[in-house]
C-alpha cells in the first residue's frame, strides 16, 4: 500500500485511508483533508522531511509521521 511518503513531486493522489487516532483524523478534517479527496504533491518528503500538499487550492504541510499514516493511490 502506498502512503503519501512514496509519491513523487507533482503527482495527483486520492486519499484512501487515514490510520491513527481521532486526534489526527479531526485535525486533518479541519484542514479540509478527507478520505476520497484528491490532492497534489507539491514537495515530496526529502531526508525525512515534511510533505507539502495542495488541497483545493491551498497548501498544507504534513510531517513525516502524519504522512506515513495516510494511504493513497495515484490518479490520472
Amino acid at each position, binding site marked *: 500500500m502506498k502512503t503519501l511518503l512514496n509519491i513523487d513531486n507533482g503527482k495527483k493522489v486520492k486519499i484512501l485511508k487515514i490510520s*491513527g487516532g*481521532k*486526534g*489526527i*483524523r*479531526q*485535525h*486533518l*478534517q*479541519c*484542514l*479540509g483533508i*478527507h*478520505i*476520497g479527496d484528491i490532492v497534489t504533491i507539491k*514537495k515530496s518528503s*526529502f*531526508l*525525512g*522531511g*515534511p510533505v*507539502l500538499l495542495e*488541497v*483545493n*487550492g*491551498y*497548501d*498544507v*504541510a*504534513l*510531517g*513525516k*509521521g*502524519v504522512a506515513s*499514516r495516510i494511504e493513497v493511490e495515484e490518479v490520472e
Partner: protein
Amino acid sequence: MRIAFVGQPNAGKSTIFNGLAGYKTITANFPGQTVHYTVSKVTVGDETFEIVDLPGIYSLTAIDKAELESRKYILSGQTDVVVNVIDASTLSRSLELTLQLTELQVPMVICLNMIDEARRKGMEIDLNKLSKIFGVPVIETVANKGIGLDKIFISAKEAHYKRLIPKIQSFHKDIEEKIEEIEKIIPKENFLKIPKRYIAVKLLEGDEELTEEIKKYPEVLNKVREIREEIKSSHGRHTDTVISSERHALTMNIFEAVTKIGEPLKSTREKIDDLLTNRYLGYPLLFLILFGIFFVVFEIGKLIEDPLISIFDSFIQQLPGIVKEDSLTFFILKGLLEGFSGGLGVAIPYLIPFFIGLTILEDIGYLPRMAFLMDTLMHRIGLHGKSVLPFIISYGCNVPGVMATRILESPRDRFITATLSVLIPCAARTTVIFGLVGAYIGGIAAAGLYIFNLFVIMILGAILTKFIPEIRPGLIMEIPPLRIPTFKNVLMKTWLRLKDFILVAWPLLIISSIILSFLEYFKIDAMINLAFSPLVSWILGLPEQTGLTLLFGILRKELSMIMLFQAMDTTDLSKVMTNTQLIIFTIFTIFYIPCIGTIGALIRELGTKKTLIVSILTILLAIILSLIIRILLSIFG
C-alpha cells in the same frame, strides 16, 4: 451591540479588527497568530459597537488551546452578531466552519476577505447566491488594503435588527433522524443558551468537553453511545468521520453552486515560493535571510547608537560642574540620565530595525515556510516545525514567544518549546550581546555567542526529549500563500511592539537605575554584592560589583548591562574587565532565570510548578555553562 469576528486561522480577522479599531492586535501571515482575544469599542455615527477579535479556529471542535478559547467565547452567548471572516481563496474549506456556526443560531454576517487573492486563483464567487443559501448578508473585503471594511458595520446592524439568523443546512435524512433523536433527550436545565442541534451534533462527533458534561446524565450518554454505534455499523466508519464527510459534501455542494473557477494567474509568487522551500536552496536562503537581518540590525543599530551615547556621556561628564558631586541630587540625576540613555541609546537603536525585519518576515509569510524547512531538524530535538514560530518570536521578546506556544497541540510540546524559548536571546539580551561582546570584542564573537546559544538549545532539547518522549505524530500545518506586506501595516506593527518597550520597559530601566544610585549613595550595594560574591567572584570570576547588576537583570535583562557601566563607574568597560569576563557576564545574562515579564507569561501558560522548574533549570544551566566557558577560555584564550 457586540460583534465577534470568527474565522479560520489566517483568514484576516485581526487585520479587519485593526482596520476598524485602530492598531490593537498583532497580525501575521502565520496560522494561529492571535492567541488571546482583544476587545475594542468603536463608535460609528451614534452607535457604539464592541468588537471582539478571537483566535482563529478551523472548526468548533477545538484542537489546540487557542481554539478552545474562541469556542468558549462563542458559546458563552455574549455576542449579538457573529462576523464569519473567510479567506475567500480557501472558500471550500472555510465553509465547514460556517456550517457549524449556523448551528449556534446567532445573527451572522459572512465576510469574504482576500477576495483579490481568490480572483488571482481564478475564482469568481456569486455573493447573492451565497447570501440566499444562508439567509444572511455576504460582503467582500480586502482587509490589508482597507477595501470594503465600511460595509461590515452596516451589514452587522442589518443582521442584528432584522435578526438574520443563518439557515441550517441539512445532512442526509438518516443522519438528521439520529440528530433529532438526541435533541429530544438533551436535558433542558443545563444547556439553556446553546441550541440543541449543536449539542446533538457535537455529541455525535464525540466532542470531549460536551461528552464530559453529559456524563451527569448516564441515560443520555448511553443513548448517544448507542446511536454512535448504529451509525458506525451502518456506514462502516467512525461517527465523527461520517459527520465530517457529510459536512464536507455539503460545503462542496455549496462551493460548486456559488463559485466559477477560471484560469488561475500564474504568478511569480509561485516561483519565489518554490525557491524558498526548495530542498537544497531553501536552507542557504534561510541562513542568508536570518544572517542578513542580524547584520542589518547590528549595522543600523551601531550607526544610531554611537552618536546618541556620546551626547549622553558628555551630559553626565558635565554633571559635576552643575550639581555638587557626592550629593544625593547628583546621584539621582546621574541614575536618571543613565537609565534614560540606556533605553534611548542602547535598546531602541537595535529594537526598531529588528522589529521591522521580524514584521516583514511575518507579513510575507516566511515563518510557516521556515517551519516547513526546519521540521526535520526540530524532530531531532523532539519537536516539530510549528515550534519554530515561538522560537523566532522569542528573538524579539520571550513574552509573546512563550504565549505563541499555544499554537502547539500537546502540553508536552508546549512545555519543551516554552522552556527552550526562554533561552533564546531576546532583543534585551541582544543589546547586551552587541553592547558588551560586540562593541568590545567584535562582531564575530557576538555571532559566535548566537551559534553557541543555538547549540545549547539543541542539546537541551535532545535531553528533554529523552525524559519526555514524543507521542504526537508531528506537523500538520497550513502554509498560507506569500503576501506582499503593506508599508502601513509594517510601521504600525513595529510601533505597537515598540510601544510596549517604551511604556513598560523604559520606565523600569530609569527607576531601577535611580534605585541603584540610591543604593550606591547609602552604600547598601556593597552589602548585596558581598552576599553574592561566592557565586560572582569564585564561580564566575567576575568583579564583585557585578553581583547587584545581575540581580537587577531579572527585571529586564538589558538592565544588567546598563547598570554595569554605572556599577563599574566607567563608560569604557574594557579598562576594568577582561574579554573573558565580558564573555562570561554575557553568557550568564543570556541563560540565567528569565526576566519578570517572561516568568509571568510562563506562569500563565505552564503553571507555577513548571515555571519554578524552568527557573531553577535555567539558573543551573547558566552557572554550568559559564563555568565550562571560563575553563575553556583560560586554557585556549
